[in-house]
């Protein structure tokens, strides 16, 4: 493997990120290893489990399936960027806590990001919209009961409106 590195500049959580990365470096690895944003988790590295979901220009994407060099000029938001700096939780996070929407917590950042994007796009989802919209994220602990309940609660609070 050549050591050729490529510069790339994008915005992460409102801050400019100027990286020089190998072309093969995924966005997920760049976030975790270059920017120390370890809230984005890797559950499969092949685009199925959704644990690595982040927002790119507002859309939920799997950061394991993007190369960092594809992000030139993009606006990336990770779980850290969705979390209030004052130590509180945002309404989606609050709903997950209220509804026991997490146990081990490993898949959780991906679910929070996915639900945030879902509610931004569809502020008044049906139950089926929520279930289908969250079907791209895998959880092994909760049986999805608390997650679906949290999604209903967050949708009911109108956080996407």
């Amino acid at each position, binding site marked *: 493997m050549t050591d050729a590195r490529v510069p790339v500049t994008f915005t992460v959580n409102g801050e400019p990120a100027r990286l020089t990365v190998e072309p093969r470096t995924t966005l997920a690895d760049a976030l975790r290893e270059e920017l120390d944003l370890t809230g984005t988790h890797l*559950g499969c590295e092949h685009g199925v489990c959704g644990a690595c979901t982040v927002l790119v220009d507002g859309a939920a994407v799997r950061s394991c399936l993007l190369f960092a060099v594809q992000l030139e000029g993009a606006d990336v938001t990770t*779980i850290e960027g969705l*979390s209030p700096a004052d130590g509180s939780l945002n309404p989606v996070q609050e709903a997950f806590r209220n509804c*026991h929407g997490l*146990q081990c*917590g490993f898949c959780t*950042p991906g679910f929070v990001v996915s639900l945030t994007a879902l509610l931004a796009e569809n502020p008044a989802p049906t139950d089926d919209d929520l279930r289908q919209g969250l079907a791209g994220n895998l959880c*092994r*602990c909760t049986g*999805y009961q608390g997650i679906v309940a949290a999604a209903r609660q967050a949708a009911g609070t109108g956080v996407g409106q």
Partner: protein
Amino acid sequence: MTGVVTPNAARFVGQSVRRREDPRLLTGRGRYVDDVTMPRLLHAHFVRSPVARGTLTGLDVTAARELAGVTAVLTAADVNHQAKSMWNSMMGPDAGGPPPRVLADGDVRYVGEPIAIVVASSRAVAEDAADLVVFDIDPLPPVVTIEQALAADARVHPERASNLSGELPPAPQPELDELFDGAAHVVSEHFTQHRYVCVPMETRGLVASWDPWAQTLEVVAATQTAHESRAAWSRLLGVPEDSVHVVMGDVGGSFGQKMFPGREEHGVVIAAKTLGRAIKWIEDRTENLIAGGHAREETADVSLAFDESGALLAGKVLHVENVGAYPNLGDGMAASAAAIVFPGPYRMQRVEYAAKGVYSNTCGHCAYRGPWMMETVVREQMMDLAAERLGLDPLELRRRNVVQLADQPFTTATGVVYEAVSPAETLEQAAELIGYDAFREQQAAARAAGRYLGIGLSLYIEPQMGFGILATEAATIRVEPSGKVNVLMSTGSHGQSLETTIVQVVADELGVAIEDVRFHQGDSAATPYGPGTGGSRSAAIASGAAMQAAHETRDKILQIAAHLLEASPDDLELADSVVTVKGVPDAQVPLATVAAVAYLNTDAMPPGVAPGLEVSSRYKAPFIMFSNACHAATVEVDTATGAVTILRYVVSEDCGNMINPMVVEGQIAGGVVQGIGGVFYEHFEYDESGNPLTTTFLDYHLPTAADVPDLEYGHVVTPSPTPGGYKGMGEGGAIAAPAALLNAVRDALRPFNAKITSQPLTPEAIIDAIEAGTGASTEAPS
């Protein structure tokens, strides 16, 4: 010691207190093993066998070692002699099995078996170098299935006399033979269960660091137990236990897989010692699927004998388990536990439980949530098959045989004593909640309209073992000089919410606010010894230890306060962190003052009382304890496509007093959906050459939010006789769900006489079962 613990006023226990763990996990501030870094950290990657069985020759790592960024490429010749011993505390050093090895040496015995460890400056470079490792494997015919293992001349382990990993032989029981000979009805069936696996969302991993000057090993691990990991690596390296320090941070699920370190973890530890460096290994998903540990591939031949009235007389089981090549616990068999709990919730007089474990050239068996669950899978299906034979409804047959509270203490056919279990009550509650009788009417109407609905029950009793390594748990409680409380325990929560539930228990028992209590776990140096979190033990056994230690702490607080208040300890109460003389509200002293005296003004202590306010107390659990539940599911089967829709799913659970009902229901839900996954979606498949076919989440299908119904819960509360009245219940959901679903599908397909005795129930399998059924398929409307 059990008798001395009397609960203080319950304020937090019984409440769905929101979890202490959640804010950090929801904001991306959890600390999982892959989030940990260290100075000069290196990264490991394994070269693995692509062949199930064969002779390994020509291993050449020269080119890999020469790649820029590679620190070392280690093979069996470098590593295996450094492994002084490999065994775990549960089974002991004489558990049998094939000679353990860290890396394949001379031959390979399953696809995924580690052959070499590449250590490099980054994971990517390590993977690049792995591609440069050269070797030849002359393939040999593999042993893949149970049938092949029992029949083949080929032996998985040439060092072993046969492919049997272990055997529970049937014991002669003349009384049992008489019961079968005299029975009005004998029902027999053969069941198979397919291989499905734990799949924690976080794979296995560790960061291991060896200090060659201090001769100490520091490890951050994704595990269920810091202490057992410490023991394992102390044995592995032949170094004293206290020179190994294991810490676990947040752990992203396990379900049994991370209970004992595997050979990859051992390899990384040896590599760290060899190189005197810190090394991180994070398994990727394909590695986790093919090599992380497998479970559930089992068969059972079961016979049950009934009298004229439908009373269950006796049972016979032959249980066979495919334990893979290198099971990670002894002989890999769960049959000895299955044999003990097979009678489950029913009265029967005699049981014969025979079992075999067979090696195969596949990934080794590991613990998976309710490892012995085949007993419930087959017993509960047998009850439905027997009901059909006897012309009874499955609910009625269970009613005629279920153990009642009035029968207890009740000794089962396998000699286990039940006390305070409520299978009859949960059976009735589940039937009531799901509207059993109304469903039968709805089902009949639907059938008349050409729709196929079914209902399935599954009743079980879940054991929590309290013997051997699992017998005890300890808590250290430190009331700090300010009156704030730290609790230290051996547990290793990986989703079980112990940072919340143990704090609820301690806060109540001490009489302080939950905000004043913090919980610390997962550190082999800082916490008392214990087996970690697993085996559904934490709610009952860890809480028992926490209560006992808190009780002793409270006693000491009251002793000191009594001296300060010039009162008798018996006249004092401790609530809201203030000690008050009962009935004299003005006579009080804050806990903070008591604590300050204990550390900072020790001359004010009562005579004869040791300074300080630190208590460490070890709790001995009963040999075995039980919770119980009944699952009830209704389904609709589309007989044209084979698709199954779960209409409703009810669980009536009795885990005694609930510390946190939200957490209890979360544990039930997780287990049930693993059962749904196992029956309908998940299947770890090998081809005839022993090649794994389901190596990504594109092939190994987990259920999603779109695949599961809203679960419904009922709670029966029969407190255990142990501290707090709590019972463990972490595994039951996964144990009971498969039979409820299998019974519901079979019930739906009764008009076709479809034979449902194997899994997974894929649409194709259901169509095949309908077509093979002796029922008039012409009845099926188009």
